[in-house]
């Protein structure tokens, strides 16, 4: 029952946003919807924790799904709160018209709906449809400003992701073909629970081929190198709250698709999937580190940082074992929270300075001290400095690498992290310190936006310093969904 309510909320809000004229009301409705979704996701989590996985017709919600649902709804709540002032500012500055304002609210809600479906459907085919749905729902949001660059980004986004996702469909078809030979031609032969139970009987060659296509297909959406080319364009052109949603939770959703197949593949052909993830992970880290060093546009820099972090998560799954998977799952949470904070900060910077060039932003500390402080601390967090959450998860993955004897991989991983840290700090310090850029008035751009940003920073700080016992237990339960990690 709870799940159905959770799925209906964004749809209801989308319909209401279409019909209600009063824009302020729609914006606060978005916040209220976000808050109630988060509460419901937590309640659903408690239910799953006490009664075990929830399974009903095409829905299946286990610990992993609930974990993702909570992350999505929390980030969505933060983004909704931030959007209130951000979008109003754009509208007042005549950047966008009333029609676009309306479209923004409708598409953000549909986008949320598709992401919620991705992580709660049992049927792998429906999951595929929902992941393709996220592309369609967010395409308009990427091209939101209707400038030549945003149209270019939206076109690349929709074409590259659609091609990628058709390859994932091929992987799904092959999986289905192998499962019908075991389960017969029933409509639930694509259900993840059935596939998991039948996994020991499935044809290994089929599973291997399928997993390759799945990693390439969903990996396009995750932004793994070399399928990442759309990502810096789309994430830099979209409005900042949308970038936050795309980087913070959309990438996780696509990763979720890979994890489900990873589990099936691990049951039948252990060792095959991790090796593949290890290669993609290292490659992503390497390329992202290079592009972070040479970046000139701070939103692109953050987009490449997302590629880097997806690489780290992929590496965690590649190393595998209880520690590696624990670390990867933990890093998903930390990355979501921190990257959302960072993109929300850049929203304030873009609206204040009217540029995305790193070289043209100077003296943030004098112009808007609170945003500058949040931005600087967020940058420290995203590069894995103590005492923030991402530091812990990156250390866990390093520890996993060392304890399973992957010394070379771990060394390369740590070296690349250092390179990313240096590059990031160089760019960020240029933006935060120094004499303010001429012609920029002092003062925070909108006070309300500071609330979600502060909440996000305190969350990663609490995770980093105290690491609540409950969270460790939750993560351990989540990691147990993957075989070989119990």
């Amino acid at each position, binding site marked *: 029952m709870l799940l159905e309510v959770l799925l209906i909320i964004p749809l209801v809000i989308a319909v209401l946003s279409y019909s209600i004229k009063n824009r302020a009301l729609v914006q606060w409705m978005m916040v209220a919807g976000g808050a109630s979704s988060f509460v419901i996701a937590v309640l659903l989590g408690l239910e799953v924790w006490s009664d075990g996985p929830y399974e009903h017709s*095409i829905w299946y919600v286990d610990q992993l799904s609930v974990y993702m649902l909570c992350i999505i709804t929390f980030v969505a709540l933060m983004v909704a709160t931030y959007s209130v002032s951000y979008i109003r500012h754009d509208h007042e500055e005549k950047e966008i018209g009333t029609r676009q304002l309306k479209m923004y609210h409708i598409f953000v809600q549909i986008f949320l709906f598709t992401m919620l479906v991705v992580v709660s459907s049992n*049927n792998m*085919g*429906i999951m*595929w*449809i929902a992941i*393709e*749905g996220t*592309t*369609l729902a967010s*395409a*308009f949001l990427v*091209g939101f400003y*209707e400038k*030549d*660059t945003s*149209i*270019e*980004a*939206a*076109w*690349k986004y*929709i*074409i590259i992701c*659609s*091609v990628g996702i*058709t390859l994932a*469909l*091929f992987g*799904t*078809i*092959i999986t*289905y*073909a192998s499962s*019908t030979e075991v389960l017969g*031609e029933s*409509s*639930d*032969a*694509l259900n993840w629970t059935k596939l998991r139970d039948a996994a020991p009987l499935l044809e290994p*060659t*089929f599973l291997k*081929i399928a997993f390759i296509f799945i990693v390439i297909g969903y990996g396009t959406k995750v932004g793994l190198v070399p399928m990442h080319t759309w990502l*810096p*364009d789309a994430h*830099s*052109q979209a409005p900042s709250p949308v970038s936050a949603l795309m980087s913070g939770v959309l990438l996780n959703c696509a990763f979720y698709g890979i994890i489900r197949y990873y589990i099936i593949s691990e049951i039948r052909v252990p060792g095959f999937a991790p090796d593949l993830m290890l290669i993609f992970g290292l490659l992503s880290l390497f390329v992202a580190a290079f*592009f972070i060093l*040479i*970046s*000139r546009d701070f939103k*692109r820099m953050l987009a490449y940082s997302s590629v880097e972090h997806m690489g780290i998560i992929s590496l965690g799954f590649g190393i595998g074992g209880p520690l590696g998977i624990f670390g990867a799952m933990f890093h998903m949470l930390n990355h979501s929270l921190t990257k959302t904070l960072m993109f929300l900060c850049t929203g304030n910077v873009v609206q204040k300075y009217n540029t995305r060039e790193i070289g043209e932003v100077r003296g943030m500390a004098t112009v808007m001290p609170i945003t500058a402080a949040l931005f600087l601390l967020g940058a420290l967090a995203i590069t894995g400095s103590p005492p923030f959450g991402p530091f812990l998860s990156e250390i866990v993955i390093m520890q996993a690498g060392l304890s399973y004897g992957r010394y070379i991989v771990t060394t390369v991983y740590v070296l690349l992290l250092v390179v990313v840290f240096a590059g990031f700090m160089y760019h960020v310090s240029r933006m935060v310190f120094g004499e303010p850029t001429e012609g920029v008035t002092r003062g925070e751009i909108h006070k309300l936006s500071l609330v979600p940003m502060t909440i996000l920073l305190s969350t990663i700080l609490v995770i980093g310093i105290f690491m609540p016992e409950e969270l460790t237990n939750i993560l351990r339960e989540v990691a147990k969904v993957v075989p070989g990690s119990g």
Partner: protein
Amino acid sequence: MSSEIFVDAINGLGAVVLLTSIFLVASKRMVSFVRTFAVQSLALGLFAAIVAYHMGADHIYIVAVLTIALKALIIPTFLTRTIERIHVKREIEPLVGVPMSLLICGGLAFVGYYVSEPIIAGGNAITKNCFAISLAVVLIGLFLMISRKKAMTEIIAILVIENGLFLGAISIAYGMPLIVEIGIFFDVLGAVLIMGIYAFKINQTFETLDTSFMRRLRD
């Protein structure tokens, strides 16, 4: 009907799907490009219908009807309208010349057969031959994607890849579950509509449909 006629019909329609893909590569005019795609979808729909009749599987009939309605009628009409509304040069200027492209397609068809060998080796279903064709069609679609740089040709290339996968799904698993198939159709329709709208915007902004002009975003 005896099963031999079925095998002939199924293989024949599979061949039509492959041939139309090759015609697409050779095509130089936008309108004939869209028409060839419509013919390919029609062949695919009939293919599904014959399989449905042979297997006695009712849900494939629905899929067949949807394929013909959507991919052979609605989408081509929408694309032709968009082309007419945009009024740009209708010729396709390929990055790779037609003779070379045809040669590459021959190679891709061969790769399709070679790769599918281990997958179809174990099975004995009558449609398994078409799995090789489906792989070839997917590869030709990917080739179209990278070698033709008009927004409209990129849309069709995605649809061709989708057609190839659809053929593959029927060949090795007699189609996906119905609810999934319908969802996929819904997605394809949505994707084509959005891409059509963007093709229109690209034409407005860049005054061309040539996507290789879009090079403003780089590091």
